[in-house]
């Protein structure tokens, strides 16, 4: 059974994304991060977007590996020595720190991947065009340019391969040089394309005055419930931060009680119950 969350109000969806991003950037507490991870997985499962889980891991694994190596090389703090090599201690603490650090990147990837599952793009363009039309037009043009650029790069690669440009060169310098004509061409065509989109918007009356809104979104009961839930999470998180109850310093006097205190558990439960909120509010809205 798959769910479609795109009828959520644009503002609710954005608040959720901002709140999650804020929490991930503000805490190192593994339990809180784990609860966000589980929440993201639940959203991916409910919307049938398992491929996003894999895609996140593709970026996470090499980043985690590099973080672990660098942390091992430059940090020898910690009391639990895993092994000693070249006269240097490799500690469990350095390993855990690197893992937590890289898992935050994974969470940010997952949170941003959720945007397209929660946000109705057209609804967002329509909504923000009525509030800040110039910035929205600018963003829309940029977003439209990216997929077109990708297509153009492929076409130009074919054309220039057959004009003798070697894109398979092993030297990085040669490889970079081979892309120069493509970039020169892209620069010109992208500017033309952006100009054409702007002209089309002008002819269609964009920025001619106050816009009306097609299928104006109204905050529904589920938006209110979700917003209240997010508000509780925010208040709880601010309290935790203020009282330094989420502090997790693996290198200095680490104690399990710090990790598993009552408030952190409460915070994690509040995040995990978001899954329940989504389920109960959208259970009749299968896609």
């Amino acid at each position: 059974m798959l769910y479609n969350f795109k009828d959520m109000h644009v503002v609710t969806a954005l608040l959720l994304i901002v709140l999650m991003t804020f929490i991930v950037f503000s805490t190192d507490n593994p339990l809180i991060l784990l609860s966000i991870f589980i929440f993201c997985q639940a959203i991916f499962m409910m919307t049938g977007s398992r491929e996003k889980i894999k895609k996140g891991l593709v970026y996470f694994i090499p980043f985690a590996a590099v973080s672990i190596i660098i942390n091992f090389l430059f940090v020898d703090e910690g009391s639990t020595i895993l092994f000693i090599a070249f006269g240097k201690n490799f500690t469990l603490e350095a390993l855990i720190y690197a893992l937590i650090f890289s898992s935050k990147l994974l969470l940010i990837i997952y949170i941003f991947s959720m945007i397209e599952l929660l946000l109705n793009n057209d609804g967002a363009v329509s909504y923000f065009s009525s509030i800040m039309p110039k910035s929205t037009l600018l963003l829309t043009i940029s977003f439209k340019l990216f997929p077109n650029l990708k297509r153009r790069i492929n076409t130009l690669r074919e054309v220039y391969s057959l004009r003798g440009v070697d894109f398979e060169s092993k030297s990085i310098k040669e490889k970079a040089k081979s892309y120069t004509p493509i970039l020169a061409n892209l620069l010109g065509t992208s500017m033309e394309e952006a100009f054409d989109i702007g002209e089309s918007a002008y002819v269609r009356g964009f920025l001619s005055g106050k816009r009306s809104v097609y299928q104006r979104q109204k905050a529904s009961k589920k938006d209110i419930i979700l917003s209240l839930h997010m508000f509780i999470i925010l208040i709880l998180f601010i309290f935790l931060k203020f009282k330094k109850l989420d502090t997790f310093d693996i290198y200095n006097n680490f104690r399990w009680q710090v990790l598993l205190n009552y408030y952190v558990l409460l915070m994690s439960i509040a995040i995990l119950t978001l899954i329940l909120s989504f389920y109960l509010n959208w259970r009749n809205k299968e896609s």
Partner: protein
Amino acid sequence: MAYIELKNLDYWYAGEDKKVLSNINLQIEKGEILFIVGRSGSGKSTLAKAITGAVPQFYGGKIRGQVLIKDIPLKDMDYRERAKEITMVFQDPERQLMMNKVHREVAFGLESVGIEEEVIERRVWEAMQFSNILDIAERDISSLSGGQKQRVAITSAIAYLPGCIILDEPTSQLDPSAAEEVIALIKKINEELGTTIIVIEQRIDKWFDIADRMIIMEAGAIKFNGRKEEIYVENYESFYPEYFKLAKRLGYKEPPRSFKHMRSLINSEKIAIESLKNTNKKEEVECINIKKLKVNYGSLQALKNISINIREGELLGIIGSNGAGKSTLLKSIMGLFSYEGSIKLFGKEVKKLKLKEISMLIGYVSQNPNDYITKDTVYDEIKFTLDNHKIKDYALIDQVLLKLGIEHLRNKNPRDLSGGEKQRVAIASVLVTKPKILMLDEPTRGLDYEAKVKLGKLLKELNKEGTTIIMVTHDMEFASKFCSRFILMFNGSIAASGDHHQVLDGGIYFTTSLNKLFRDKQKDVFNISQFVERDAL
């Protein structure tokens, strides 16, 4: 009072000394279909932009004279009122659609001009019903075909209920069947809603039939302005539909009223027709040998078990519907796709050759000549290809410029050239290494008649000198005139292969206008060059 009136209009683009529009005087009546033609760079699009107000409000520059809409000067009209009254559909739908979903896109313009929210919903869905695109209302625009995207753009224009819709080459990027759907929709808009239509196009035949009046532009000025039939007595053959050209050739004093009328005239005549000379060289040397070729895009099989031989010196046209696999076949031969089966290029398996080796044997010209522009002069652009191949014989550059008749463009910036000239520069930049095979993908796209004729002659000449030419094209008249052999493809397979008689004769869709006109009278008629004499019965 005319609906739209242009009085003594002159226009200069910002920073330019040369006038782009010169003393334009024009009246357009409500409900008219006006067809504007002219060579590339003649000022057609600028004229259209002057009517929408984009010139000079969006482009800047200097304007003199007046544009009046319902007797109100355009410059005095409120921007919003102007946008509601006159709207425009552009050449490339990719560059005008802003939203992801079709119905949202149709609503976008209405939101921009502040149509009341209770009205928008009805307008959006009624406009989609009118254009017969309700079935794709919830589809992502990125998943639509070119023709569907253009119909969405037109539907977005209808939703305003404008007095006038201007279309700037709306079918130039579409295949013939998608173009016909667009033309039928425009005719319906004009007939049922009374909307004034202004169309700018290089494709003459189908638009000519629905137009009320024609304008021919040259160097920024109106050279001809009159009923479409009137061009028959003037010497504007470049802008005739094929059946007008035929009527002129047969010496009719009056123009035929329609394609159907032309057929009845032909059937009542005795016409001697020269049989088509088959110029196909029967060289025995194979340059490309394809056996059991299969190409897959994920789960989609783009080419299914294709086997074909192409001999040296052929001028081969690959024709067929969109998505039939024509470009895929071309690119597979060039080693750009992985494949199953065998493709041998001069006896060597393509997948075993490096792209650089293939590029010495095959020159490839893509659909868009702008793809070949990276340098500041034509000379440097051609030199770039030689440098990539580490060829130091720069005398080859002047040779190829001379051969293609563009030696006068040697030091010009390729960005400043016309469509036809850019096309020649693109061909020059791949021909400079003297490849044995030249491949072209939709070479006539966006070219005016004169440029097409020049291109055709050039290809014939190159072919005579020994270059094997393979082109993918939707332009049946062009293919019939210049190709000696054809491959007709559908759904990843070859449906027919051979000369004019074997592929084009009796075709329902993929054949020439003349073949359709003459089929009751005589077989194997394809080109106007075949006619020799006419006697009344």
